[in-house]
């Protein structure tokens, strides 16, 4: 590996660039697309548009976070979509008409628990069966979508409006109108105005990050998950509890997928056993867009989030650019392909061909 020695001599800055190159690309792409959208839509910086831009990405963001936690171990989870469907169907089947209080909390807890359980099952089979994640989750995904279909043979079901509003509207709309005083002035006015621009879904995402992801990432377990992804054999030799780490990652996956399902439910105010499927492959795409290595050991959710936003902006752009309807799939494909390729541009900066193979 002496080819790498040149990298070791690199200045901290160069090292930083090298380490976060893919992540950087992801953000650049996202901001470029955001720029294009904003330039095409003069009403972009209005509360409603900002909110819908945030909302349309949110389920995909959580799907991507689910995929990320598994991919970090070097695995892959093809059951992300079906778990989302299952959660969505389950929620829509268990919300009680008329009870907008305790019931909501119970349903949320139930869905999260079921999602985590689904992840747990994936993890246990992968670890104790020593089977290949891709095929295991391919199998369980079939099972989970079956369950979703069983819970929701046809679209519908009741979802409390208040639940939906809580997650999908703007903070400003959720606060009592006189929260900042009857007719606010000065800083109050600013805040009042400011919060009208903040989508509730964004707050929700931040809460999930702070309460679930960051503690996980920063815990010893989180460190072990990266270690296992980086070199499973070494992890075992180093006294890392490989099984615990792996299973934990899959549980996280199930949990995030369930959160995604909960958000989808809030946004569609109903259940549909078929709506989750699309998220599986999309989640993989954005994970890679976000710079997480499919070989495991590196990466994180920041890039994934950027990737999700980028992917969802494409149709918006096609709409405002008035692209011929029958050409839209082509353009969409082209942009995606371009985005993935951009991540590869680093290859030209690498000076030892071996490094390109690691």
């Amino acid at each position, binding site marked *: 590996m002496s080819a790498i020695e040149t990298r070791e001599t690199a200045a901290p800055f160069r090292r930083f660039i090298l380490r976060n190159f893919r992540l950087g690309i992801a953000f650049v792409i996202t901001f470029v697309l955001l720029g294009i959208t904003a330039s095409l*839509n003069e*009403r972009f910086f*209005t509360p*409603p*548009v900002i909110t*819908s*831009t945030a*909302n*349309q*990405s*949110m*389920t*995909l963001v959580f799907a991507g976070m689910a995929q990320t936690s598994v991919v970090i171990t070097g695995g892959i989870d093809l059951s992300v979509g079906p778990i989302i469907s299952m959660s969505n169907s389950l929620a829509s089947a268990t919300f009680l008409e008329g009870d907008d209080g305790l019931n909501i909390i119970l349903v949320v807890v139930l869905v999260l628990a079921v999602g985590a359980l689904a992840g747990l099952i994936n993890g246990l089979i992968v670890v104790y069966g020593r089977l290949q994640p891709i095929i295991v989750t391919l199998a369980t995904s079939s099972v989970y979508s079956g369950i*979703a*279909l069983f819970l*929701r*043979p*046809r*679209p*519908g*079901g009741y979802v409390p409006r208040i639940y*939906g509003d809580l997650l*999908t509207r703007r903070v400003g709309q959720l606060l009592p109108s006189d929260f900042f005083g009857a007719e606010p002035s000065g800083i109050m006015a600013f805040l009042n105005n400011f919060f009208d621009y903040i989508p509730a879904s964004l707050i929700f995402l931040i809460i999930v990050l702070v309460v679930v992801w960051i503690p996980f990432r920063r815990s010893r377990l989180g460190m072990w998950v990266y270690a296992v992804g980086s070199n499973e054999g070494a992890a075992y030799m180093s006294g890392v509890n490989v099984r615990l780490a792996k299973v934990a990652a899959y549980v996280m996956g199930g949990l995030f997928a369930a959160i995604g399902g909960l958000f*989808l439910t809030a*946004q*569609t*105010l*109903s*259940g*549909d*056993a*078929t*709506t989750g*499927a*699309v*998220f599986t492959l*999309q989640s993989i795409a954005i994970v890679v867009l976000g710079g997480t290595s499919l070989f495991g050991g590196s990466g994180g959710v920041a890039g994934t989030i950027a990737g999700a936003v980028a992917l*969802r902006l494409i*149709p*918006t752009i*096609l*709409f*405002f650019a*008035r692209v*011929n*309807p*029958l*050409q*839209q*799939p082509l353009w969409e494909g082209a942009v995606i392909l371009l985005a993935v390729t951009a991540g590869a541009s680093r290859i030209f900066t690498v000076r030892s061909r071996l490094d390109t193979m690691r």
Partner: protein
Amino acid sequence: AQDTSEVEYDPEACFAPAPNNDGTVQYDAKEGPFTLAISNSFIGNAWRTQMIQMAQAFSETEAVAPMIDELIIVSTGQDVEAQIAAMDNMIALGVDAIILNAATPTGFDAVVRRAADAGIVVVSFDNIVTAPEAVLVNEDQVEFGAAMARDLVERMGGEGNVVMVNGVPGTSVDSDRNTGAKSVFEEYPDITVLAELEGRWDSGTSQTVMADFLATQPQVDGVWVQGGGPGVIQAFRDAGYEDLPPMAGEAENGFRMAMGNGEFEGISIGQTPGMVAVSMQAALELLQGRELPRIISMPLPTVTSDEIEEGVHYFEGLPDDFFTPIKIPVCGVDLDPEAILAVEVQ
């Protein structure tokens, strides 16, 4: 068997209230020309492609062209959120009307309300939505399934084995058509539903499932197929059936061609992509202040083997998966294949 061209556009007849209609809708008349936006979900199969082509072709017919300032069409794929966002963008852009073919029937209540609040006319067709503010244009799917079943049972003389080839499980269209059909079959004690196959409305899948089924050498006296009829016929051919049993199916050109060539007796009812044009028509009427029923039931474009005619009900030399019911004269939709297929992709 009639020359369609002499039938006039008749709003009353075209926008007939559905049995389950729950009232009428009226907006204050606006000054044209108008901006219409079509929000489509999935794209990639023949039906959706033709639907988009018909929308464009219709917008260029001299009857409506003057009333349309711009027609924007965007397809967002199966993900609900993307489609919701697309509609939000249309609202933000301030279009006059949104014509919607939804990824899921139940997910759009909130966004449709937002559109209504913005004074935008929302017309939902094909995969219709549950939002109370939307005007719905569709064929009665329960009746769709039932009518096919009735004709089939008749041709079977009220007895024998039926095979049902369903659509995509979990969708309401699938379960509606299925319910309609079952309600008919149940009336006939001597009719047994031998099997329900998962054809997913796609010719390839329905061919495979039918082939699998036929290979078990069953006695099949009638086939009820929601979509993908050509595949089913192909399966019978491959299985070496000399003459096909009576069939009730959709309106793919291929299916009707076989029917027209006398390969089998039966009925064909079309979920016409033309309903996009009808929906545009409805939107224009609403924008001009006309009062319409909220739930509009289009006539089911039906043809049986007894009356089927080349050039009217099907077209030799057009693709098998071209959807034949393209003329809905009472709704002022009178396109011919050339016009539709000539649509430019520039």
